């Protein structure tokens, strides 16, 4: 009896092992399409992009594919370009200011909506609209709202006695304009993620804090804020990755102008490669690769952070 059982167990184990060995191949059969896809449509375009940045391209050699290898020349040119400094600074300003406001406003709204009142769920859903709209829709709407002569924003400013601002046509204001539009687009993401983070904090902690006599402000800074720190870090890092690559919004609203006043790495790279009749693919790809490095830096930080949380 016992031998029978043990032999039964052994055959079970054997088949399990066989199955796992074969299962390994089955699993990779399921994964084969995605692996081929990643190689063909991620790795290869990225390789082509790297290749572009290391060669000296003209329009003709771009089509024929016989451009001479030029090493890091494109990178040297890009670094030496007088537009490099401003573009770097604008990328940094755009990213940091956008995220600071998105996060602060998103957090404030999340805390507000977390106090369940009538309609709070519906209103919170409506807040998602800006995030879901196609960027071209948001960008063209903001362009018209910020129009110098007939925009509603200047009209509203006029009502409180402020002189009209040339939002999109003055170099002093172009970057501010695209940042304002970008903050508007990013608030919903921050709100939703931080709200779900708030939901994960157990009410008992708040009850305990209330029993200990903590007031609203103390409850926020001593309980909510520290407990929300992991979710906050993840929101901020993801926000960094997303914001660094914003291109559509800036290109549609200002094309990086006027006079490069709102040029970031993303729009600069696009302008090199596609913005004129004489494309410069080499420098365009070089700027693009610098952008990838920046995105990956924060991306890896995010992944590290998330792994540590798990």
């Amino acid at each position, binding site marked *: 009896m016992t031998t029978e059982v043990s032999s039964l167990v052994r055959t079970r184990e054997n088949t399990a092992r066989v199955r796992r060995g074969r299962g390994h191949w089955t699993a990779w059969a399921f994964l084969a399409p995605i692996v081929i896809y990643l190689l063909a449509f991620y790795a290869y375009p*990225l390789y082509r992009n790297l290749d572009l940045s290391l060669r000296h391209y003209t329009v003709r050699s771009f089509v024929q594919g016989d451009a001479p290898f030029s090493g890091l020349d494109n990178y040297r040119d890009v670094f030496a370009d007088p537009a490099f400094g401003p573009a770097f600074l604008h990328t940094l300003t755009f990213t940091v200011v956008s995220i600071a406001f998105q996060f602060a406003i998103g957090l404030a709204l999340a805390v507000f909506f977390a106090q369940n009142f009538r309609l709070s769920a519906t209103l919170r859903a409506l807040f998602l609209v800006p995030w879901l*709209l*196609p960027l071209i829709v948001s960008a063209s709407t903001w362009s018209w709202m910020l129009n110098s002569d*007939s925009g509603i924003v200047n009209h509203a400013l006029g009502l409180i006695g402020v002189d009209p601002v040339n939002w999109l046509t003055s170099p002093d204001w172009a970057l501010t304009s695209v940042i304002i539009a970008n903050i508007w687009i990013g608030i919903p993401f921050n709100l939703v993620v931080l709200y779900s983070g708030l939901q994960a904090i157990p009410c008992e902690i708040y009850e305990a804090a209330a029993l200990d006599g903590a007031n609203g402000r103390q409850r926020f800074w001593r309980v909510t804020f520290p407990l929300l720190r992991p979710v906050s870090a993840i929101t901020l890092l993801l926000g960094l990755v997303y914001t660094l690559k914003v291109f559509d919004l800036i290109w549609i609203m200002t094309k990086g102008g006027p006079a490069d006043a709102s040029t970031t790495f*993303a729009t600069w790279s696009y302008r090199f490669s596609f913005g004129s009749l004489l494309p410069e693919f080499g420098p365009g790809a070089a700027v693009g690769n610098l952008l990838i490095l920046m995105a990956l830096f924060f991306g890896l930080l995010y992944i590290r952070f998330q792994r540590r949380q798990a």
Partner: protein
Amino acid sequence: MRYAAVLRYAKTVLGLFFTAIMLFPVYWMINVSFTRDNDMRADPPHLFPWNGTLEGYRAVFEQQLPYLGTSLVVGLGTVALTLVLSAPAGYALAKLRPKGGGALSFVLLIAQMIPGIIMAMGFYAIYLRLGVLNTVGGLILADSTIAVPFGVLIFTAFMSGIPDELINAALIDGASKWRTFVSVILPVSRNAIVTVSLFAFLWAWSDFVFATTLDGGGDAQPITLGIYHYIGNNNQQWNAIMATAVVASIPATLLLILAQRYVAAGVTAGAVKD
């Protein structure tokens, strides 16, 4: 008690106020889409389209229908491609767990972070050589790169939650892994399929970067380029531009009304681990 009720009421009012501010640009888009050309630069601006016009929408029907059609095809194509690629991958990563699966998940996370504009440049170089610039198929392929890594992450997360007993029961009944996937896993993964499809469609529909680089000169261009040409032509017919924008926002609106639950799930899925 009375005081608490008043406070709750006040919060609702405040919430309505915040929402109104946040959605003002959306309202303004709709308002301008109905405004007559000669009222467009009125001072003060018309806050409500009294004496409005449907001219903008007539322009949409006369000029933008082909663009909308292309966007619909591109969107549906992207959804199909994304599902076919990411659902089996999610199943393998969640349930079959092969060696090297962790590395693949890592690669997918990284892939999500690569700026679209850089992908577009690489695609441009390749498409030019292959002669598939300005084709709908080429645009679908490029657009799918936005959604596929997200799709795999969602499917993996969702399918990890399917009880093993369900799968083992099918295997004991003699079903193959593929059979199990098709007739057991997929039917119970409906929520994940809906979430991934919604986002894949919305991202393809909204895409501007790939459209302008890879499909800027074709016969079949998506609606994002339709709007972009409108602005670029400098015709200043803002009611037509905004009417197109309103029509282009319909999928996002439908999505929010019909599938709000899935939208919120999709937004948080990437960011927060339960």
